[in-house]
């Protein structure tokens, strides 16, 4: 029995017909074909499917799509304006914070959520906050440095 769920995706309203067992990740990738958000473990362990629901980072693979009715969903596609990358995306690029790139969308979404809440986090705060995002290439140090650079740039402004 399919039902309609309506929510905002990166600021634009969408309506999708879903099965009750469909996750938000299923809907993003397989129906809306918004492919930035990746499917890793499908069990909440890896973090690459991290999206924002009303500004808070959550696992889209653990989120039943029907439960996001009326909510604001933010994905990696929502970052950057007019062809310009978001400062955190630029920092990831400049610091070599992605190798194969598979974890990067989740890393950047989590990093954005951290900086939104704590504009100038300590290294410990960054490590703690980002601990839910795994990178099998091992770019952790570069990820931390990229987030630190955006934080300190903000501090200078």
């Amino acid at each position, binding site marked *: *029995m399919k039902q309609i769920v309506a929510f905002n995706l990166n600021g634009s309203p969408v309506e999708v017909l879903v099965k009750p067992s469909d996750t938000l990740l299923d809907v993003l990738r397989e129906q809306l074909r918004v492919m930035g958000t990746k499917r890793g473990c499908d069990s909440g362990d890896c973090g690459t499917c991290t999206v924002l629901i009303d500004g808070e980072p959550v696992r889209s693979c653990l989120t*039943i799509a029907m439960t996001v009715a009326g909510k604001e969903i933010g994905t990696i596609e929502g970052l950057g304006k007019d062809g310009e990358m978001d400062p955190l995306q630029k920092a990831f690029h400049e610091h070599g914070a992605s190798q194969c790139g598979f974890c990067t969308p989740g890393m950047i979404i989590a990093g954005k959520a951290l900086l939104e809440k704590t504009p100038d986090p300590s290294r410990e705060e960054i490590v703690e906050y980002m601990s839910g995002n795994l990178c099998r290439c091992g770019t952790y140090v570069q990820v931390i440095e990229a987030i630190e650079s955006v934080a300190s740039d903000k501090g200078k402004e």
Partner: protein
Amino acid sequence: MKDLGYFAPTDVGEALKFLAEYGDKATVLAGGTDLVPRINYHELCPESLMYIGGLGLDYIKEEGPKVIVGATTTWTQIAESTVLLDKMGVLTGAAKQGSCVAVRNTGTIGGNLANGSPAADLTVILLALDAELLLKSSDSERMVPIQDFFTGPGQTVRKANELLIEIHIPVPAGETSFFKLGRRKALTLSVVNTGVHLVMDGKQCKNARISLGAMAPTPLRCVKAEAFIEGKDVDEKVLSDCAAEAVAESTPIDDQRATAWYRQKAGKALVTRALAQAAGIEN
């Protein structure tokens, strides 16, 4: 996969009516952090899902000598609660250590209990704190002491027509502690965890609650270890012997996270540390 029905009631009465009618077919969905992986991996194909995130059960309130926590209160809400930090900081501390930010934002305290995982972190503390669980159905309600709630791995006394509504936690009279050991620091299920609550009178232990997780088919109250330490003057030897008693009550198994042998060794060390911290003894 089977086509499921989805129902998202907006008040408790509506939810209980639905469970009265479809309880044996309906699976209750709260944060989904335990349930949805099982659906994704086709280990579970519920005929219908009832989402309880819209029932307004996410609250933490002080009521006389206890704190009442609504069943859909998230780990993040617990970690950030000033009431809990003031009255039972052991719970906020444990909530901060749980999994990671994104999972804490959706995972709930009710789910941690109702899933009946033997390794559940918040549950092991609630055992040491003598929490009581309010279960409601459309025509009755009951309070279940937490040590009577679990019946086996993934199994509880909750009936199909009942919903876990609230957790009632007495403000601890003594000192509390919680320790977990995982395979890594973050984002990890416990290999073993423990909660301790000791009421001390000088060096003497007046009252003890000791719990162990991931060491038995259910989260475990170690009643023999509690009886062992109550009335005794506490020193390092007593703590270590008490921890050995606690582990002797457990029945750990080998699984993907650790062997039973390792769990016994680590469990004893962990309980000793938890006891020492609660008793205010250097260890």
